[in-house]
């Protein structure tokens, strides 16, 4: 051989070895890495939140500061001091950017107290008792002259002003103004009395706007002194807590007649309520106690018919009394201040997110509107700012799999409801109903598919004529190739209406077909004596049975409506509802059983048939030679030897049913209910992913939860398939095929 050529082919061989080995490894690794990658997307759901100290320095004249705040870009901070000065400063170093003087309408300069709520709204109580509501607003601006550099522009807007009350300076004041301009002021004056000032803007019949003012005094009968007050953002819900652990709720929505809804003992041991605030959405109330206990409450429909404030969640306890409570303005996170520092808790998931514990006690703190940064001022005048990373506070293993008591619900539930029109809506992302739906659909499909496929496979491999078998096997394999979108479409648009129309006939044929089979077999007893007919028993039985089945189904279809008339007043569905309380969904588990069963049968059939055919013929011959009948041989000899293969086939079929998407997407109602009834639909994991993922914001909680459900699907099928595959490999080793 030519040495040059030899060199060439050797070089080619080496190159090929490299390319194939590297390529093969890479491909196989990358395919195996799929799970890791989807798991990686869902992993941040469970990562603990963290806080990073951004800046820390002494704030000048910190001793006089009444409130602080910060923009959401972590660039500009501000402080309001007791002389009404609003000072903007650079968050990084505290250098002053701007200084404004705030004034009350009466001209008072001294500021007594500041209460912060909503999106950097401050209600300022002046020394003469007058009150203003100011909102600090930030927005980015781009300076064209300076290479489009971003600057943060700040602006102050006075939203409302209230004159001083006649009784002089109150002990505490709360004020709100809502989007329609309705203004509410609540003053706590001595002896547990609350003064109410309500100003409503109304349009009269001439179209002029006029304001109507109402004053009320609320004097609840309480055993203790009011220690905490909370007012909803629109000023219509007022709550008060006392040092005896009592909780009072008023409804202020009717300006003429504010009503006390209820008074209840929140703490049975008469522990003082030290802090109150409303959670984002203004439905739930967070209650902090003197012993550091932190609970949230919202009204739940009671048995008597009214709505009663009920204790729902308990959050992480503080070591000492809860000093202050504030909501996040993005989600249901509650921030609570105790002597041991700041706690971040998510209300619904009851997840303790984060603890910030500066060296000195905190005097003021404020979360940015986006909820990703916090500014705080300590007693010692140190200004601190943190960057917070709390990506998915509402997700915990509890909310994903356990029952959760969502706001506005009567009881804890498993619920999947990912979106709604309103902003303060809380997504309900429980995977339990979806897993339940997946398993339910799979169960009904397997219920139909396994017996049909197994008996069919037994017949094909053991009894059918070889010539017929060579036709049946490819036919079933082709059946496996029918796209599931087609099966789903037919199930939904053809089968579902058909079954809805003839439900009675369906049930009738469930009884009639076995009965007709029995009858047929009995008649056959007589007929098989005739020699030409006996030939049917040599592998043509299934052809002989087919007309019996078709005929019986036709009879059932004809008799069905009459039977429904006779037994169920003409409408089986109505009867089901009124007698059994079962709602009939047109797209239900019967449809799924048929459609998904149809999709799964060929898979189970093929694998089971293969393993049955692979049982060595000598076994069969031995059994038959000992005088066993053909069925006894199958039942006692062949089935046991083929059982691993049959099991593997069923497992693979199960895996396929679990992951099937298009059929369930089209042929179920996609309602996430947990109900075993065969007349209901469900919402399985796979269809849920297909429906929701196009709308899910990238890297949001929903997006990651959907990836998590993909991981669950993956793991479910992976376990099942691996088990089946190992069994199959054993079988192959045993019978020496491949």
């Amino acid at each position: 051989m030519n040495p040059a050529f030899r060199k060439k082919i050797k070089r080619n061989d080496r190159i090929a070895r490299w390319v194939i080995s590297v390529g093969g490894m890479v491909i196989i690794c990358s395919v195996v890495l799929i799970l890791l990658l989807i798991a990686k997307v869902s992993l941040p759901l469970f990562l603990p939140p963290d806080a990073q100290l951004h800046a820390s320095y002494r704030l000048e004249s910190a001793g006089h500061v009444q409130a602080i705040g910060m923009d959401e870009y972590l660039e500009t901070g501000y402080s309001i001091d007791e002389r009404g000065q609003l000072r903007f400063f650079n968050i990084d170093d505290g250098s002053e950017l701007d200084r404004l003087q705030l004034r009350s309408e009466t001209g008072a300069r001294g500021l007594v107290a500041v209460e912060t709520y909503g999106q950097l709204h401050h209600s300022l109580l002046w020394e003469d008792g007058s009150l203003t509501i100011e909102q600090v607003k930030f927005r980015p601006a781009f300076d064209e002259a300076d290479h489009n550099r971003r600057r943060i522009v700040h602006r102050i807007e006075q939203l409302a002003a209230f004159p001083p009350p006649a009784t002089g300076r109150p002990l505490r004041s709360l004020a709100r103004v809502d989007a329609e301009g309705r203004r509410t002021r609540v003053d706590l004056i001595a002896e547990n009395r609350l003064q109410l000032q309500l100003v409503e803007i109304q349009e009269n019949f001439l179209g002029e706007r006029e304001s109507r003012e109402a004053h009320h005094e609320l004097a609840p009968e309480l055993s203790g002194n009011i220690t905490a007050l909370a007012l909803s953002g629109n000023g219509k819900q007022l709550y008060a807590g006392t040092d005896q652990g009592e909780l009072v709720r008023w409804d202020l929505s009717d300006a003429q007649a504010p009503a006390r809804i209820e008074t209840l003992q929140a703490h049975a041991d008469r522990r003082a309520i030290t802090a109150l605030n409303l959670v984002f959405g203004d439905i739930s109330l967070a209650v902090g106690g003197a012993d550091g206990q932190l609970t949230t409450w919202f009204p739940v429909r009671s048995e008597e018919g009214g709505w009663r404030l009920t204790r729902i969640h308990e959050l992480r306890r503080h070591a000492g009394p809860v000093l202050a409570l504030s909501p996040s303005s993005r989600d249901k996170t509650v921030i609570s201040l105790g002597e041991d520092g700041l706690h971040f808790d998510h209300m619904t998931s009851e997840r303790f997110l984060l603890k910030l514990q500066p060296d000195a006690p905190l005097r003021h703190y404020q979360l940015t509107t986006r909820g990703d940064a916090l500014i705080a001022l300590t007693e010692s005048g140190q200004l601190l700012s943190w960057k917070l990373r709390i990506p998915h506070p509402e997700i915990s293993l509890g909310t994903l799999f356990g029952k959760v008591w969502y706001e506005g619900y009567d009881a804890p539930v498993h619920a999947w409801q990912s979106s709604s029109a309103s902003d303060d809506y809380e997504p309900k992302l429980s995977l339990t109903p979806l897993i339940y739906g997946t398993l339910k659909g799979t169960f009904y499909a397997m219920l139909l598919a396994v017996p049909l496929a197994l008996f069919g496979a037994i017949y094909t491999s053991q009894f059918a004529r070889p010539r017929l078998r060579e036709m049946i096997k490819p036919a079933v394999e082709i059946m496996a190739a029918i796209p599931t979108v087609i099966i789903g479409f037919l199930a939904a648009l053809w089968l579902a209406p058909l079954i809805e129309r003839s439900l009675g006939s369906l049930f009738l044929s469930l009884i009639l077909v076995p009965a007709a089979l029995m009858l047929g077999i009995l008649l056959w007893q007589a007929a098989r004596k005739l020699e030409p007919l006996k030939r049917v028993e040599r592998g043509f039985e299934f052809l002989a049975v087919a007309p019996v089945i078709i005929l019986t189904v036709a009879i059932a279809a004809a008799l069905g409506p009459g039977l429904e008339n006779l037994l169920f007043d003409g409408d089986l569905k109505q009867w089901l509802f009124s007698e059994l309380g079962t709602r009939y969904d047109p797209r239900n588990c019967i449809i799924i059983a048929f459609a998904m069963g149809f999709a799964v049968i060929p898979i189970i059939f093929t694998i089971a048939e293969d393993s049955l055919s692979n049982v060595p013929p000598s076994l069969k011959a031995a059994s038959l030679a000992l005088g066993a009948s053909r069925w006894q041989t199958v039942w006692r000899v062949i089935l046991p030897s083929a059982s691993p293969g049959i099991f593997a086939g069923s497992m693979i079929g199960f895996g396929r049913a679990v992951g099937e998407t298009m059929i369930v997407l089209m042929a179920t109602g996609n309602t996430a209910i947990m109900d075993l009834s065969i007349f209901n639909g469900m919402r399985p994991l796979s269809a849920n992913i297909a429906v929701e993922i196009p709308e899910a914001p990238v890297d949001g909680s929903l997006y990651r939860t959907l990836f998590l459900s993909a991981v669950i699907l993956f793991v479910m099928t992976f376990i099942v398939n691996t088990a089946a595959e190992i069994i199959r490999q054993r079988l192959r080793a045993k019978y020496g095929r491949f």
Partner: protein
Amino acid sequence: MSTLRINNPLIEVENLRFYYGAARAIHGVDLQFPEKQVTALIGPSGCGKSTLLRCFNRMNDLVDGSRVEGKVLLAGEDIYARSTDIIELRRRVGMVFQKSNPFPKSIYENVIYGLRIGGEKNKQLLDERVESSLKGAALWDEVKDRLHENALGMSGGQMQRLCIARAIAVNPRVILMDEPCSALDPKSTARVEELIGELRKDFTIIIVTHNMQQAARVSDYTAFLFEGNLIEFGQTKQLFVTPHNKQTEDYITGRFG
């Protein structure tokens, strides 16, 4: 232990030991194969005769975990030396297998396979070589009209002779035959044996066989192996008539094996 020395041996085996993983299958064999003679390797199943044969063209390299110690010299060069080109070696040492294994290609393509992979493109030369090889394998007359038909359509004996033609087409010095007739009917066997007689004119042949009559019929020299050891080596006539060794005698008289 026989100590027959051959003049000008083509293949010399010196203290060859062969391991499958930790198990030793050949325990130090010394042998010399004369050029242009037929040497038969005989012995009971599992005695290592096929393994020994496969050491001569390094087919055992394909077995995972196998290891060779000792030397095999082909025309004075150690085939287990680092510098040995395994491809060149296999072109010089052809092989015919127990089970005939023509490729699912035409008869023509089967014969020239070795030349093709060696980079030969000259059509005329290929045609000539096909004819000479098939003639050499006594197959030409049977297949000359259907050279481009699939080889899998031939009879078992024809396929085995095709494999021989395929082996001699690359002009090797040695042909190894691993029980070439064990899957053939007596008539085909006779033809192949006849062919071996023809081939000894041009090639050095080493044949492994189970069948002592066959060894006696076709070979000039015979080596008897037992449990990985060379028991006796000598001229076939001498070995079958007057074996030196008791074990050899027992084996060839059919007392075991």
